[in-house]
């Protein structure tokens, strides 16, 4: 079931010197409980799509159809945790801003923290946590406001390779456990392949959609298992060539 449709999205950036066409004619959809990745060369305007979806940026043209008025949750390039707030208060930030800091919501957040291995760190401060843990905290902060669709903007780019793999697994499990849908923006082909049901490949600026791949592998249980499948490298080669041709 389609829960979100983007139709001929266009975005122009204006500066005093020139106008820059960042996105042109971007159309795609998102099904319920599906993870879709958007991949493309750096600076192609991938993140702009997410900003247009949430209304952080005004789109220049096109249509974003969100019939059921589903709520978005946004994950940024790094965890952006506030060093002066403890883990719990960091997670409650969104609820506080939206004036929804009820006892039930607070319990919901504490439950999430316990469920995803942060029970002993509820009153710790971010600087005492590893990069991977901080990323989990950031995800719980996003989940706290109970969004329906999660948007990830290069979510693991600040992590080292090892933690990136394990955090991918964590995030993948959390998305599935909580029954959410997600759009992931990344420039890492392997990351996109390992996590998503569909991959949208963008061209360089002005970005248009070059192709869309349905990802079908023998074992899609977790990102790490995904990476072990024999189809993985085939997909990787095809997408890599597609992006490489462009640059």
């Amino acid at each position, binding site marked *: 079931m389609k829960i979100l449709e983007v139709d001929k999205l266009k975005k122009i950036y204006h500066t005093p010197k020139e106008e820059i066409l960042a996105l042109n004619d971007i159309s795609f959809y998102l099904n319920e409980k599906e993870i879709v990745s958007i991949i493309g060369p750096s600076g192609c305007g991938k993140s702009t799509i997410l900003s247009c979806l949430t209304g952080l940026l005004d789109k220049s043209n096109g249509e974003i159809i969100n019939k059921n008025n589903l709520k978005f949750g946004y994950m*940024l390039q790094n965890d*952006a945790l*506030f060093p*002066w707030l403890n883990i719990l208060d960091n997670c409650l*930030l969104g609820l506080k*801003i*939206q004036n929804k800091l009820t006892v039930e919501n607070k319990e919901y957040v504490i439950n999430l923290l316990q469920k995803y291995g942060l029970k002993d760190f509820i009153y710790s401060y971010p600087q005492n946590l590893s990069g991977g843990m901080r990323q989990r905290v950031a995800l719980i902060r996003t989940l706290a406001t109970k969004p329906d669709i999660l948007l990830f903007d290069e979510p693991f780019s600040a992590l080292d390779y090892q933690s990136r793999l394990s955090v991918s697994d964590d995030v993948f499990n959390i998305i599935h456990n909580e029954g959410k849908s997600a759009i992931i923006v990344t420039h890492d082909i392997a990351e996109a392949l390992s996590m998503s049901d569909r991959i949208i490949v963008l061209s360089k600026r002005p970005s248009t959609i070059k192709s869309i791949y349905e990802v079908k592998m023998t074992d899609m249980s977790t990102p790490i298992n995904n990476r072990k499948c024999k189809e993985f490298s085939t997909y990787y080669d095809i997408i890599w060539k597609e992006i490489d041709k462009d640059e």
Partner: protein
Amino acid sequence: MSKEHILYLKKIKRNKLFILSIQLLIIILFIIIWQILADKKIIDPFIFSSPKKVVETIITLHNTNNLYKHIWVTLYEVLISFGIGTVIGIVIASLMWYSPNFAKIIDPYLTILNSLPKIALGPIIIIWCGAGIESIILMALFISVIVTIINVYQGFKEVDPLKIKLLQTFKATKTQIFLNLILPNNYSNIISILKVSISMSFIGIIMGEFLVSKEGIGYLILYGSQVFNLDLVISGIIILALMSSIMYYLVLLLEKKIINKN
């Protein structure tokens, strides 16, 4: 604890002790040499005074009850101008953060006021506010507030844009962004600006007291130089140095407390 670690700790302690003793030695030697030179009339004690005379002067001031009155007046003026300056500085910097247009509009005026030697405003201030404490406080305010505004605003502007974006994704209003991010993110920055502005306030107050005053440490120094009582002048300077260092350390203490909390 390993033997090496104990040795390491000892070494640090010894180094600290060494630095402290040299520091003490410098001041003690300075006082002794000053006294000897004055006693032997190598320097003219009438112009250069001497440690003994300074102590005597301070004791006389203490006995006639004038000392605390002068200290209190200066301290009172410094605290008022420092307090008002800090509040005005933070409020204006906040308004500039709220409205980038406001910031752009007042930017050239801030630059001009910042580069203007504020002491030049002294005569006008005295004519406007009269020869009283108000003029002195206004003088100090002019000197400290511009720097406070500029530095606080700079700190507000340097907040991580990604953190601002995060709050925007929660649909935070500008006030919420200010209260939840900009201000708490700048606590330690504001404290270090206070360290500068407390010194600025002292400069302003003494300048003001030089221009117009009947009491205060600045008055004491100026009066001493007019009647050629150099003992009084040097005593005043030493008292002032003590006062401003104590104030500075108080702010430093506040800083340590706040940084520990974060």
